[in-house]
């Protein structure tokens, strides 16, 4: 029996902007520590923007509705786990 992936949700306070190298994540506040991350993957930035703009922050929906290969999706979920550790994404098992 396959286990369904955990639910990933982008937290509301995260702002995203595309840049030439990929993009920036910014969790707003007054110059808080660790609130800024540089992401050098355009694919990941596109996914995050898609989740924010189309799926109300539901990253799982953004992944599943994408055209990424199974291997790419696996990599994206690993990247989302990393973003969860850095406080940009909530994960509910």
């Amino acid at each position, binding site marked *: 029996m396959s286990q369904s992936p955990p639910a990933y949700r982008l937290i509301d*306070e995260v702002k995203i*902007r595309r*840049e030439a190298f990929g993009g*920036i994540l*910014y969790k707003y506040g007054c*110059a808080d*520590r660790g609130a*800024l991350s540089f992401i050098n993957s355009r694919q990941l930035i596109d996914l995050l923007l898609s989740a924010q703009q189309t799926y109300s922050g539901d990253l799982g929906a953004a992944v599943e509705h994408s055209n990424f290969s199974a291997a790419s999706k696996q990599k994206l979920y690993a990247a989302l786990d990393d973003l969860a550790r850095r406080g940009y994404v909530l994960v509910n098992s």
Partner: protein
Amino acid sequence: MPEPVRFLGRQTRAQMPGQVGPLHPAALVAMQQTGQAPAQSSNHGSQRFLQGGLSAPITVTWEITAACNIACVHCLSASGKRRPRELTTGQSLALVDELAEMHVFQIHFGGGEPFLYPGIWQVLERCRERGLVMCISTNGTLITPERARRLAQLDPIYFQVSLDGGTPQTNDRIRGQGVFTRAMRGLELLAAEKLSLTVNSVLTRYSFAELDRLYDIAASFGAKLRVTRLRPSGRGQQVWDELHPTREQYKAFAGWLGEHPDVLTADSFFHLNAFGNKLAGLDMCGAATATCCICPEGEVYPCAFFQAPEFEAGNLHDHRFQDIWRNSALFAFYRNMGGGSCSGCGQYGVCHGGCPATKWFVHQSLHIKDPECVLL
């Protein structure tokens, strides 16, 4: 003793074809003396991404007025009276729209005292409409119950209320007689509306001993403490020798930060990384790359601490902000400065030579080491 740099005036400064803004010869020489920036591929950490400049700043510091009802001895912008060419409310609203269109994430309002700007409420309301996060740096003395209630309607909005000591004696010798009590009242009113607060404190030789007390004061308002580095800009030039912390204090402070991971620093102490333990946050200056400063009369500078006429990147009375950010000759050079005399240092990778503004205001050079380099 280096000679002070003379401000030549906009008309006489060099301007490169296709580039925006004046390039003061003294700034050009100072930046060229630092040598070439390391190749982007050889950089590590945040510098790798910031060196080429971002499409827009992450945060813009906007000193919206020079008017201030108090007169701090270390004021970085030498504020006091409103200045003749301050941006009108209409110009400020247009600027908010432009910053939003560029996808700037956050505006950090300062001054002067922002609540003395005549159009402040219109500007804040426009920021909220445009989805720009606001942070207001205030002395706290003009907060009233009515203002606090109105501000609470503007969420997300953040406040930094300045206290430069944990006691009236220490704070008021910097910020003026009676200011400690009035700022505490401002904090109380903002906290009563459950607004997101930090107590902002510039680390000085005198406030160092009161860090624990400042931490407790912040906690008593449900706020975090934010400690920032003293810079010798504005009136800070006159009190730099007296107020800047000693090397021993910095060493102890770095340890204290390690024991208080919830204390914010605005990433302003990266020069302390050379002690051997990297502090949280950016390990380099974000001026002209991640941030910049807009001053009351429309001047745009690399950062709030670098308000030297020689380093004006452009003026909003003459150019749009995005043209200055993207095409300013000064910013182009600034983003590609080398490490100067720090280039060969084994610690360069963790402090990137420290604060350029501090170098400039103390020694009128960008080539030398940061005057507070912990290895000196």
